[in-house]
């Protein structure tokens, strides 16, 4: 409004300009200097590699019950580490190491799919609200308000419980629903801000078609925070899925090698007799969630104009 307040901003950008080329490149450069970002990127990178190549890396078949004959739960016996089973076996005599490795793949699948679905739905809602404003916005945001007002875990539980035929996707969708309102609000906020911005006005006055403006100007410029949020959501999704497993609303195939499932089960049943069964997947989850969080936070930091000074 007051025309000279922009002076400050201008200077900031002048500085930014001196740094290099595109905005994304600058952000990446800033991140490359931050140890937090590096740690985050390394963790997530390793995790991704692990997930992709898990079947090749796993020394044994994660579903084969090698030592089941030696498991006697009634006497609290689950064989520990030994030759060929560096971390021991689980309560079905399956190789724990292989299960953990293959579990990375399942965990990634749950995390990524949940985030993507949440992102997709959230972006449709937020995008529509932000692009059209007015009553579309009002109606959609009320809906989002309601979703927000149900505690996230409750929402996930509700969705999971609703499934007629629970399967792996139940969990994914349940977890995805939690992030829908977050993405929707975020995108809507930035889109609305874009709506009034000068460059959108400029495009309008050039006679650019409306949908082109929305898709080419408003949306891309609103994506930064959304991408950051998505990275953070990946972390929470993995944890949330674990919580659902813990509450018994997880994957219907209980033998699937998935960290949340493994942790949920072991934390309940074997914490006293073989705590490793819970600790290994827990540590894996914590590290991966931490990796995504670190990456997301440093991305947020790097993209934040305030930090460019």
């Amino acid at each position, binding site marked *: 409004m007051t025309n*000279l307040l922009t002076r400050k901003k201008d200077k900031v950008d002048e500085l930014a300009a001196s740094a290099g080329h595109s905005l994304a490149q600058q952000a990446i450069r800033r991140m490359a200097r931050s140890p937090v970002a590096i740690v985050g990127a390394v963790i997530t990178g390793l995790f991704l590699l692990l997930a992709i190549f898990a079947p090749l890396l796993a020394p044994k078949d994660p579903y084969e019950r090698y030592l089941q004959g030696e498991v006697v739960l009634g006497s609290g016996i689950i064989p520990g580490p030994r030759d060929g089973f560096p971390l021991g076996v689980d309560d079905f005599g399956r190789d724990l190491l292989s299960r953990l490795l293959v579990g990375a793949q399942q965990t990634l699948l749950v995390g990524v799919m949940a985030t993507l679905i949440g992102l997709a739905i959230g972006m449709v809602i937020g995008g529509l609200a932000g692009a059209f404003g007015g009553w579309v916005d009002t109606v959609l945001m009320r809906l989002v308000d309601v979703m927000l007002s149900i505690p996230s875990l409750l929402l996930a539980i509700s969705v999971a419980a609703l499934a007629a035929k629970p399967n792996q996707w139940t969990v994914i969708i349940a977890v995805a629903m939690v992030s829908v309102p977050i993405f929707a609000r975020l995108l809507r906020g930035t889109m609305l801000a874009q709506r009034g911005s000068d460059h959108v006005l400029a495009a309008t006055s050039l006679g650019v078609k409306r949908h082109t403006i929305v898709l080419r100007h408003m949306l891309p410029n609103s994506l930064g925070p959304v991408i950051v949020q998505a990275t953070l959501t990946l972390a929470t999704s993995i944890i949330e899925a674990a919580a659902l497993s813990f509450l018994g609303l997880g994957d219907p195939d209980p033998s699937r090698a998935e960290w949340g499932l493994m942790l949920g089960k072991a934390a309940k049943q074997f914490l006293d007799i073989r705590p490793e069964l819970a600790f290994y997947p827990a540590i894996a989850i914590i590290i991966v969630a931490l990796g995504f969080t670190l990456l997301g936070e440093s991305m947020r930091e790097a993209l934040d104009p305030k930090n460019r000074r």
Partner: protein
Amino acid sequence: MALLEVRDLKVVFQRKGERPFTAVDGMSFDVEPGQTVGLVGESGCGKSVTSLAIMRLLAKRGNKVTGSVKFEGTELLSLSDSQMRDRRGRDLGMVFQDPLSSLNPVIPIGLQVTEVLERHRGMARKKAMVDAAELLDKVGIPDPNRRLSEYPHQLSGGMRQRALIAIALACRPRLLIADEPTTALDVTIQAQILALLQELVRDTDTALIMITHDLGVVAGLCDEVNVLYGGRIVERAQRHALFAEPRHPYTHGLLASIPRLDAGRGEKLVPIRGSVADNIPWDSGCAFAPRCPNKIDTCVSVTPSLEEDRGGLLRCHNPVLPAAATAGEGAR
């Protein structure tokens, strides 16, 4: 002895992983009691940093301030933090550019004024409130008693700036630093504020450092003007001398590039080419050289020093000759 003596003031910003950046590069000037000294220059030339360095309001880390700032003979830069706090607000007042963001949005105006009275005059809140109302009245805020309990957002821009001035002048400081006090305001309001400042300074014999990028403001207000470029003073003169015969090509360029209300309309403006971003560091030559119409070979190899020139100071190898009033021609 001058009220304020700034000698060889230098501010270097140093961020981890970045090249050190010299924002203020050996600034020296004096301010006599009652005198109004102008600091003019374009955005980024170091005006604000200079004022903040004098007030010692720069962040504790990330920068290095060297040189000397003597206030009534006391070296401010070597005072302890608490000694300096005792001076700020009492001996040195300051008014900032953006009156909205410079006032705390969640505290009533009254408290923001009394705060300084309580701090330096040891007044009780009640008494301070009475004084605060008087102050607001003096800076021309109507219905001051009511305004005391209002919040900044309830005031208009001009009123906010008046409130800020009231705060700065509450303890009758000997020196007031005004950093672009009118930049965010409309011309009619700017006129009010400038008139107010002028009046207050005159009435109380306060010295004023006026920081602005608007040469017009300087022309009406200042006794002595310092023109800054790239963190250094490039020209200093009494205001009449400066406007009548600008010697530095930069000063000259500035004057030629702004449309004057009283000039004929047909005259073409003469811009300075390039922009501030094009300047080069002072250490290998004249920072203005890349944009200078009067550039000679020496300019890029020898750093000019600030030298006496017709009663003022000038930092230029090839100053504008009084006759060559149109030397800036063809700048583009």
